[in-house]
């Protein structure tokens, strides 16, 4: 009972995420639509995550953390760090509203243990800069592909360009009036 209460408190304290939107028509003023994808190889397996029932919809998701600067994520990662996260699904692109201005992807978080404190998570490196231009309505940043080993050490980061497929898919859903600009991010240089 006590453990359930702690889990409930832990998860209910998680700040709000970026609003998911289907297309530019759902945007508010001062917002643009951000489309991209996070891929993990190997993918997160079920036994790597211990999540309480209340956080079950986080399973397999990667939480992308944005910031004005590319300040790296550090341990201990506090619950407040999830503020304005993008909940990237494992099998498709995310599509969220963000403020219309350039920003950085500081990194990403995979929640590994939330069933009782202390929590545990894998922190994935970031350092991607996203340049937003005046007049942008929707931008595509590519697929950030993390390769990892069995100890959650990142062995390689690639950025894959699936623009043609994603643009065709968006055009089908949005109609021809709204364009998705290609703004694929660059993989940060590998640390020596």
């Amino acid at each position, binding site marked *: 009972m006590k453990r359930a209460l702690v889990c409930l408190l832990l998860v209910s304290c998680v700040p709000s995420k970026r609003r998911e939107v289907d297309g530019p028509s759902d945007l508010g003023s001062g917002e643009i639509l951000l489309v991209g994808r996070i891929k993990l190889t190997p993918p997160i397996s079920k*036994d790597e995550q211990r999540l309480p029932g209340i956080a079950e919809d986080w399973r397999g998701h990667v939480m992308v953390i944005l910031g004005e600067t590319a300040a790296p994520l550090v341990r201990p990662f506090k619950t407040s760090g999830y503020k304005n996260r993008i909940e990237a699904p494992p099998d498709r692109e995310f599509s969220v509203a963000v403020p219309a201005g350039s920003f950085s992807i500081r990194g990403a978080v995979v929640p590994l243990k939330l069933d009782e404190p*202390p929590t545990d998570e*894998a922190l994935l490196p970031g350092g991607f800069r996203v340049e937003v231009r005046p007049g942008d309505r929707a931008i595509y940043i590519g697929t950030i592909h993390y390769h990892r080993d069995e*100890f*959650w*050490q990142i062995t390689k980061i690639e950025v894959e360009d699936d623009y043609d497929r994603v643009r065709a898919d968006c055009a089908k859903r949005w109609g021809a009036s709204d364009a998705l600009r290609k703004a694929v991010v660059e993989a940060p240089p590998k640390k020596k």
Partner: protein
Amino acid sequence: MARLLPAILAAAFLSACGGGLSQQMENQKDPETSLIVGHIDMKDGPCWLHWFSMKQVMPKVEKPYYNFRIDEGTFYAEYVPLGSFQLSEFGGDGSWPSNTRYTFRFPQQLEGLRLEKPGVYYIGSFKMTDEGNFFKSKYDIELAKTPSEREVLEKILPHAKGTVWEERLRSRLEELK
């Protein structure tokens, strides 16, 4: 009091044996198993080391956790198969009359151990530190220079008596001379 004493001693004995695991090693049942050994100095911790465990992450198995035998800060297990392992958790029970159980977990995102051939592997000596203050403790562990691999292996040698591990430990100790 006379009746209580055996109960307390039994509890102390149990915890000194790593939660029920005997300190005496067994003979190798599978030639592909390894002896893993290390040490944690918990003098600055809230309890003594009573258990230590490791989790197998590759290949995936139904029962991935391995509990270690304990001898005063030294942890060892001679039945670890080939594969990849993460340090999982360790801890102990607070001294009598406290009934607090202290568990310290290693983060999952941490370099682990890849066992590709059977052998005797010393994974290091660690020291628990308390960087907190009078009101709140903040425990961590760091690598320590002592005890050395030689001292740790010498400590567990008597527990390997009569098993194949005795000869292997002796041969490793010869190499360390």
